[in-house]
């Protein structure tokens, strides 16, 4: 659920086909900068009722999914 939501948000914000986004996709390849990440973090906070500030180590879709799943208890 977290993975699907994150991929859906990324596909929409970067105008990319969701099928092209995998867990290995790097944010830098999608043209996502740290402010984009912050914007996405705020949307994720609303979607999953969590408190989340992304760290610089979160560089791929998989790492983001993992971090959010830890907070939602889905991991």
């Amino acid at each position, binding site marked *: 659920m977290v993975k699907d939501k994150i991929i859906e948000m990324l596909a929409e914000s970067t105008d990319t086909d969701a099928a092209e986004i995998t867990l290995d996709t790097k944010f830098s390849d999608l043209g996502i*900068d*740290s*402010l984009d990440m912050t*914007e996405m*973090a705020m949307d994720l906070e609303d979607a999953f009722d969590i408190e989340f*500030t992304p760290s610089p180590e979160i560089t791929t879709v998989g790492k983001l999914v993992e971090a959010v799943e830890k907070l939602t208890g889905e991991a």
Partner: protein
Amino acid sequence: MSFRILGTGMYVPPKAVTNDDLAQIVETNDEWITKRVGVKERRISENEWTSEMGAKAAQAALADAGVKVEELDMILAASVSGETVSPSMATMIQHRIGATCPAMEINAACAAFLYLLETAAAFFALHKDYQKILVVGCERMSGILDWTDRSTCVIFGDGSGAAVLERGEGYLDSVLTVKGGDDVIKIPHFPGTSPFFDREQDSPYIHMKGQETFKYAVSAISSDITALLERNHLTIDDIAWIVPHQANVRIIDFASKRLGIDPAKMFVNIEKYGNTSSASVPIALHELKESGQLHRGDKIILCAFGGGLSNMACLIEY
């Protein structure tokens, strides 16, 4: 509640520093600054003190309002970058424009111009004989920037903005919030040379955590505007303009998106001046008025946020 805005004025120093100029000073470029902050150029003071710029905006606002200096009952000013802590910028401006009324300064960082309006409303309520109050935000941010820190020195600019308020009924509602703490935004003072004090202090420049500031600012704008609309049984369609603190165009755009507001309703001029802290809202308000897009009777919302963490929004019938 207690006043209406009679006139506005602004002053920015003539020296424009472009993003390409900054790229000669720190490792940055026009594309990065434009995309991440929305600033194309900023005005930088060349040998003009903060209170001199404040006095020029004050005189412009007085002229716009058709009010003589002698008519002022109070001067309220704000600055985080004054040339002196004491005398305050308010008293320096009072002296420079030749006024004789009381004057005092309020510190609420980038939100301060709105806190001046709130304080003015309180003075109008307390002193029934007060008819006119001058409010001024004035900043020489270039003096408190670390010009080797590319994450902050590209954001800010110098300038001043002012408004003359007249007793009236245009100040309809306000919401004030202070979260507290110095971990997200701070401008430390020089700690002094006391032989009895040896605690460490960060450098006396702006320190700001970008992501945390962004989150705080977007949340502040969203919650303050929502609260004002709900409390006053208004929808966004009742509001002619929102004049936000010009901190970062990304903050303004993302707050608009979360609020479901057409971004065109947010007045933005950050591309010309950068973030001028307490001067940004009055400069934006003045430019909005001068553009001919603000009309008497329009309901507008001003909103601002900054160090403290202090935020505020107010609903005004112009």
